[in-house]
C-alpha cells in the first residue's frame, strides 16, 4: 500500500508484508516515493520522542507526535518560562488551522496605523472584511492552552528544566535528555529530539547547529487611563524611523487591558533604551498618564540557523530561526513548523513503529517546509532591505501603504499565508508606484 507522504494527509499504515511501489498522481505534486521503508522496525515499543520547550512550536509538535502514535515527552520549565514579550498577534489562518477557541482572543484588531519618520500616518485596514481581524492574545494564555491540548492528546508533560542533551556516539544509541525536576537530576533516553526551546536553544547548542544573529525586542507594558485605552480598542500602531529603530520598527499593540509599547533592533542593541525613549516620545500624547507595569526584552532570531536538522534532532520555531524579516512574525511559523516536524516524524516512522534517520527528517520536514515558505521569507527579506534602510525609504513605504491594492494584498498574504490573487495590471501599477515613491522620497531626503 502506498503511504502518502504529503504532510496534509494523515498517514495510513497497513501492516501488509508485501509493499509495492506505487505512483500517485493527484492535484498536489507528490513526490514518487518507494514506500518500502528501509528503517528497522522497533522491537515491541513505539518510537520515543522528546520535545524540548513547550511554547507554540513545542506544543504543536508534541500534539502531532502524540496523535500519530509516537510516545512523546514534552519538556517545559516549571513554572513555565515567563511569557515571551512578543506582539501576540496571530493571523486568521492560525485560528482555523490550530483550532484556537475565540475566548482566548483578547482583542480583534481591525485597524492598523503606520507612521513615517515625519509622522505621515496611513490607515491600514480599509480593505478588511467584517469578519477579518488580527487576533491579539496573551502568550501565556495561548501557550498554556496549546500545552494542555498536547497533553490531552497523549503527550507526557514533564515540568523540568532541560540541562543537557547527550548526543549518541553510535548510530543506534539513543539521545539522552538530562533534566532537573523537583530538585533532582534525572535523565531520559529517547530516539528523536525536537528542539523547540527558543532563541537561546540548548538543543541547538548540543548539536552544534551554529548560531545566528538576533534582533532584540524591547517592550514596556503600559496601563492607560480608560479614555486613552478606548483609542486603542481595536487599533495597533507601527512607527518607523531611525529615531525609533535603525533597522526595524516600533509598535504600540493593545493587549487585554493595557498597551505594549516597544521597539527592536539588530545592529544597535546597546542603544535600545534610547530607541524606547524615542518611541515613547513619538506616542506621547496618546499614552500620557499611563503607568509602566512591566518591562521585558527578548531576542528574536533574524535568519535560520546554519544547521536545522542533524542526526535525529530537528529544530523548529525560534530555535530554528523561523522568524520573518520586516514584520518579525514568528508565532504562526513556530506552531506550523512544530506541527510539520511532528507529522513528518509520524509519517517516516509509520505511526511510531519504525526508527527514523536524518534523511527522513530532512526529506519529510525540512524539504517540505522550505518548499512551502522560503519564498515568503525571501520576500519579507527583500521588503526589509528595500524599505528599512533609510528614513527616505521608510517615507516611501508609508506612502505606498496608502494604496488600497497594497493594503489588500498585504492583509491577504498575512492573514491567510497565501499569495493573494493579484491583478496583473494593478501589480504593475504597484511596482511603478513603488519605484516612483522611492525615487521621490530619496530625492527629498538628500
Amino acid at each position, binding site marked *: 500500500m502506498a503511504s502518502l507522504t504529503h504532510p496534509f494527509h494523515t498517514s495510513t499504515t497497513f501492516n501488509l508484508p508485501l509493499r509495492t511501489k506505487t505512483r500517485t498522481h493527484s492535484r498536489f505534486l507528490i513526490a514518487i516515493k518507494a514506500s518500502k521503508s528501509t528503517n528497522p522496525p522497533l522491537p515491541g515499543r513505539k518510537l520515543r520522542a522528546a520535545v524540548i520547550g513547550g511554547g507554540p512550536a513545542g506544543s504543536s509538535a508534541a500534539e502531532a507526535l502524540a496523535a500519530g502514535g509516537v510516545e512523546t515527552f514534552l519538556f517545559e*520549565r516549571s513554572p513555565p*518560562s515567563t511569557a*515571551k*514579550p512578543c506582539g501576540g498577534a496571530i493571523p486568521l489562518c492560525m485560528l482555523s488551522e490550530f483550532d484556537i477557541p475565540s475566548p482566548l482572543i483578547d482583542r480583534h484588531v481591525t485597524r492598523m496605523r503606520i507612521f513615517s*519618520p*515625519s*509622522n*505621515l500616518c496611513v490607515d491600514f485596514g480599509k480593505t478588511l472584511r467584517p469578519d477579518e481581524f488580527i487576533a491579539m492574545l496573551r502568550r501565556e494564555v495561548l501557550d498554556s492552552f496549546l500545552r494542555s491540548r498536547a497533553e490531552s492528546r497523549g503527550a507526557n508533560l514533564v515540568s523540568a528544566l532541560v540541562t543537557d542533551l547527550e*548526543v*549518541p*556516539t553510535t548510530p543506534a544509541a539513543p539521545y539522552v535528555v538530562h533534566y532537573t525536576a523537583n530538585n533532582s537530576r534525572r535523565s531520559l533516553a529517547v530516539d528523536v529530539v525536537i528542539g523547540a*526551546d527558543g532563541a537561546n536553544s*540548548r538543543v541547538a547548542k548540543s*548539536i*552544534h547547529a551554529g548560531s545566528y544573529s538576533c534582533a532584540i525586542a524591547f517592550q514596556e507594558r*503600559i496601563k492607560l487611563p480608560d479614555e486613552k485605552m478606548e*483609542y486603542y480598542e481595536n487599533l495597533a500602531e507601527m512607527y518607523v524611523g531611525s*529615531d*525609533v529603530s535603525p533597522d526595524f520598527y516600533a509598535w504600540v499593540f493593545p493587549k487585554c487591558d493595557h498597551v505594549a509599547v516597544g521597539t527592536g533592533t539588530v545592529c544597535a*542593541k*546597546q*542603544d*535600545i*533604551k534610547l530607541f524606547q*525613549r524615542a518611541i*515613547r*516620545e*513619538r*506616542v*506621547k*500624547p*496618546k499614552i*500620557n*498618564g499611563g*503607568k*509602566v507595569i*512591566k*518591562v521585558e526584552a527578548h*531576542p528574536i532570531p533574524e*535568519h*535560520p*540557523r*546554519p*544547521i536545522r536538522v*542533524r*542526526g535525529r534532532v530537528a529544530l523548529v520555531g525560534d530555535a530554528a530561526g523561523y522568524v520573518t524579516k520586516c514584520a518579525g512574525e514568528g508565532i504562526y511559523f513556530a506552531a506550523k513548523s512544530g506541527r510539520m516536524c511532528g507529522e513528518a516524524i509520524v509519517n517516516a516512522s509509520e505511526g511510531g513503529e519504525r526508527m527514523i534517520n*536524518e534523511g527522513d527528517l530532512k526529506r519529510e520536514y*525540512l524539504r517540505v517546509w*522550505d518548499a512551502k515558505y522560503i519564498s515568503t*521569507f*525571501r520576500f519579507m*527579506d527583500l521588503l526589509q532591505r528595500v524599505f528599512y534602510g533609510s528614513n527616505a525609504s521608510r*517615507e516611501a513605504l508609508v*506612502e505606498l501603504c*496608502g494604496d488600497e491594492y497594497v493594503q489588500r494584498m498585504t492583509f491577504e498574504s498575512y492573514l491567510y499565508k497565501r499569495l493573494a490573487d493579484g491583478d496583473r495590471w494593478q501589480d504593475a501599477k504597484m511596482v511603478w508606484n513603488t519605484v516612483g*515613491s522611492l525615487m*521621490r522620497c530619496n*530625492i*527629498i*531626503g538628500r
Partner: protein
Amino acid sequence: MSISMALFSPPTHPPSLSPSISPKTHLTVKPHLSLRPPKTPFFLLSTTRSSADNGAGTSASAATALEPEAGQKVAEPPQPVVEKDASSAGANGSAGAAEAVEVKVVSKFEDPRWVEGTWDLKQFEKDGKPDWDAVIDAEAKRRKWLEGKPESSSNDDPIVFDTSIIPWWAWTKRFHLPEAELLNGRAAMIGFFMAYLVDSLTGVGLVDQMGNFFCKTLLFVAVVGVLVIRKNEDIENLKKLLEETTFYDKQWQATWQDETPGGSKNQ
C-alpha cells in the same frame, strides 16, 4: 548591579554628571533638549542584562533583572516624559503637577507655509502657479529637521502631505535632466572614442560597425556601464548589493550543505 544603578541615575545636574541614587519624585524641567545622554549608563545596563541572559539561557532571569531596574528607571528623567513614573504612587501626584507646568521643550517644526499638516500651496505661488521647486525644498528641509528632532505623532494634528501632488515634470526638470545630460555626455564621448579606435584598428567604418554583432555588444556594454557606474563607489556598491541579495538565501540553504554523514552525528 548597584554600581550600574548609581550610574544609571539621570544627569539632571546640568553642570556635572555626578551619580546620585536618590529617586527623583518631581521632575525638573529642562529648557534644552538633550537627545543623547551619555551612553555609558546604558552600556553598563545592557552588559549586566546580557550577563543575566547568558546564564542558563533563561529569559525569566532577564525579565526579573529588568523589573528592579524598571523601578530604578523611574528616577531617570532625561526629558520630562511624565508617564515614566510607575512604582512610586507619590510620584504620580507630583508628576501630574509637573506635567501641567511642563514647558513644551520639544520644538515643533514651524513654518508659516506649513498649515494643518500640509504645505499651503497658495503661499508658494510664483506668477500665479505653484513653485514646485520651492515645495520640494521646503519638504526636504522639514524632513531633515524632523530627523534631528523627531516629533510626537498626534491625533489632533495629523500630517497629510503627500509628495505625489508634485507633478512629475517638476521632479524631472530638477533632478533627472542634469544627470541625464551628464550621462549622455559621457556616453557620447566614450562612443566617439571607441568608434574611432575600432576604425583605426580594423578599418571598419562607423556604419559597418553597427552591422557587426560584436560591435553592437560592445555598444550595449558601454551604455549599461555608463548608466550603472556613475561614481567610483558604485562598483563596490554593486558588488555588495549582489552579495546582499543572495545572502539571506544562502542562510536558508546552509542546512542543506552536505556534511560527511559519519562526522555529523559525532560532534
